[in-house]
């Protein structure tokens, strides 16, 4: 059968060694989000400083021209390209997920692209011709740049938040029900506040590099720090975000999973430290911030962004699109058929490694189809490590009742033979991959696994809505 003929689209699966795929996309995604949000806030900050400059604050005008070079050289270049990298990486990690997102939202994605193009053109026009333009034209150009970059966020935010809270879209509400979903507004306001804060912190670094007297720098810093004031809203915005999360996702972030709780803690703690320094130190006490401290705060902001993105990604488990697509790239409606046919019956791709028995070969194919999206065999989130203390029957039970073993896992989308093959593969991997390995498939064992699979059912552990 051709790889193009199967009803369920099967794609070649790449192995990233000890890196689990979430880390790969997380690394690219965090860098992209950080730079893109800096570019958005930077546009707004530049407009504000240009306006100040035109009202007689000459240093603000000098700042605009210096800051813009940094904005262009960093966020335009790396920010724009990591955006493309996000697309490519998402294909590597979950081709079916990005395919569904493109299918559903391509016109809105194209809309976002138009604003991105306006952002790039207006930004470069200011970079290149800014010193030659009239005051009015400078202000208009910066306003257009800031608006276009924020609208780019507006459109992409709806698509990303839809993955977590598709809401009425699941009931056939259409593209707008999906776009203006429950987490759309809290995410948008949250990201806008983050963008302003990042821009202000970078602004403080740039101000410290300017050839100005300390008093002049202090005056600019006071202006820039006002721009970071929205960080004071973070606790309220975070509560709003948590309030609209599905119940299982919320409980998973707030104690159900210790690593996720720690990410929440890191994001909240780092944001609290930055917010405290900005509001109390810079705005109320009017302290001077030097370049080193501003850089340190920016580093904290990067940590908060990284932790926040992990929280956003982790909250979706076991889905990549809630209610529609599991992290295994299998639809909930397809699980029952895969239970009957087997997880890899239609998988057209061979394995790249060889195994001593047919059962282990099948186990490796099952692992590739059902586990590889989030786990590695021996690296990050390693299957061997996670299961090494489990007895064979415990393995069989835990895999067969996967969504009951952990609520954030999808139901096992294969049959009893698949479970047993995976169990034997894990045993073989734990046993240092012996050259010979006796297959096990007693009818009693398979019958027991089949009963466990039936008891677990094909539904996920949590309610979709």
């Amino acid at each position, binding site marked *: 059968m051709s790889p193009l003929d199967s009803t369920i689209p099967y794609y070649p699966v790449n192995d990233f060694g000890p890196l689990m795929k979430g880390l790969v996309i997380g690394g690219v995604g965090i860098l992209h989000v950080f730079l893109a949000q800096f570019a958005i806030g930077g546009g707004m900050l530049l407009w504000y400083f240009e306006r100040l400059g035109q009202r007689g604050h000459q240093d603000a005008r000098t700042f605009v021209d210096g800051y813009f070079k940094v904005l262009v050289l960093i966020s335009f270049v790396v920010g724009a390209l990591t955006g493309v990298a996000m697309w490519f990486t998402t294909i590597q990690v979950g081709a079916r997920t990005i395919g569904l997102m*493109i299918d559903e939202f391509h016109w809105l994605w194209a809309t976002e692209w138009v604003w991105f193009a306006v952002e790039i053109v207006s930004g470069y026009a200011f970079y290149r011709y800014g010193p030659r333009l009239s005051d009015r034209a400078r202000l208009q150009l910066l306003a257009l740049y800031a608006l276009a970059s924020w609208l780019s966020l507006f459109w992409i935010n709806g698509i990303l938040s839809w993955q977590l809270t598709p809401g009425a879209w699941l009931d056939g509400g259409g593209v707008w029900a999906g776009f203006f979903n429950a987490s759309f507004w809290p995410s948008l306001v949250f990201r806008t506040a983050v963008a302003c804060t990042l821009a202000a912190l970078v602004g403080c670094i740039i101000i410290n590099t300017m050839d100005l007297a300390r008093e002049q720098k202090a005056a600019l810093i006071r202006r820039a720090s006002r721009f970071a004031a929205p960080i004071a809203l973070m606790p309220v915005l975070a509560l709003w975000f948590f309030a609209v999360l599905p119940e299982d996702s919320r409980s998973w972030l707030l104690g159900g999973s210790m690593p996720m709780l720690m990410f929440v803690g890191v994001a909240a703690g780092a944001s609290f430290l930055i917010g405290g320094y900005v509001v109390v130190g810079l705005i109320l006490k009017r302290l001077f911030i030097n370049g080193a401290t501003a850089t340190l705060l920016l580093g904290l902001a990067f940590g908060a962004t990284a932790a926040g993105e992990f929280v956003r990604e982790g909250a979706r488990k076991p889905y990549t699109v809630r209610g529609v697509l599991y992290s295994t790239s299998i639809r909930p409606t397809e699980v029952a058929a895969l239970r009957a046919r087997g997880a890899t019956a239609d998988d057209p*791709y061979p394995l*790249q490694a060889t195994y001593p028995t047919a059962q282990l070969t099948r186990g490796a194919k099952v692992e590739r189809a059902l586990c590889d999206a989030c786990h590695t065999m021996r690296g990050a989130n390693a299957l061997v490590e996670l299961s090494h203390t489990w007895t064979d029957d415990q393995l069989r039970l835990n895999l067969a009742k996967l969504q009951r073993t952990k609520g954030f896992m999808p139901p096992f989308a294969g049959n009893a033979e698949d479970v047993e093959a995976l169990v034997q593969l894990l045993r073989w991997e734990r046993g240092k991959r012996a050259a010979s390995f006796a297959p096990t498939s007693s009818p009693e064992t398979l019958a027991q696994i089949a009963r466990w699979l039936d008891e677990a059912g094909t539904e996920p552990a949590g309610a979709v809505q």
Partner: protein
Amino acid sequence: MWPFDASIESLWLVLYLVTFVLHAVFVSYVAAGTAYTLVAALRRSSDPIAARTRDWLPFMLGAGITAGIGPLLFIQLLYQRRFYTANLLLGPRWGAVVPALIVGFYALYLAKASERWRKLALGVGLACFGFVAWSWTEIHLVMLDDPAWRAMYGAGQRFYLDLAVVPRLVTWFGVMLALYATVAAWSASSSERGRLAGLALVGIIACGVTSAVLVVIRHELDPAHGWTYVLAIAAIVAAIAWGWTARRPDGPGLALATGATTAALVAGAVVREAPRLAMIEHGRATASASGGLVVFFVTFAIGVAAITWVVRTVRAAPAT
């Protein structure tokens, strides 16, 4: 008109081709422009064309990447399974186009800012853009070759070492020269236009010779419902117009060459697409029923108006 009809897939195809053509203009300027400025730097000649090109290269690359997002979006609608499979088969080696572009981008800035590092920076930039062009050519061919997918994956091959890559790359080299010359000629002086005309003719001849050799070797010519003839006629007209421009740089030759080159580019994009039109994935319900079309077209009109305003604003700015 073939290959367009009233289907939603046809609308995606139109948008794919239009954005692809726009993308091709920018990236051609970047690739051929980098090569041109590198040669000028190696020859240590004070070439005003090279100086202007160097100045514009970073912006053109930014514009090329931005314009490239359009076809990247629509190709995922037209050939989703093929495109994703080819991406996955080439794997991290395909993903290397992104760091290559980042390195190339900064190299162009460095070449603009530093005379000392110029040759090295342009050389690095050209190598990066060459790698990206080769990678896109490879992925295009992998998408078409689904019988080879399983063996390629099983063997863990990250390179598609097919001879078909070579003529495609040579053709693109010719196209890029012609497009670069067309864009660069509009801001060139009379004497400079003559040189650019020579460059464009080299590009057109490279495309023509490669195509002729392929027709002879393969014993087949796909007329693509007449688009191939439109392409050939437009290319011949462009060549004549460039010859005319070389003789009379201030005459109407450049306008004619630009029109003919544009026609050739559009026709060439359709001819390039013809072999895979049968592979378009029809009947994808979610994509076909997706909303937001009106919002896109309204935004598109606003975006075009905004960009037009920006261009008019900066053109009205006094010279330094």
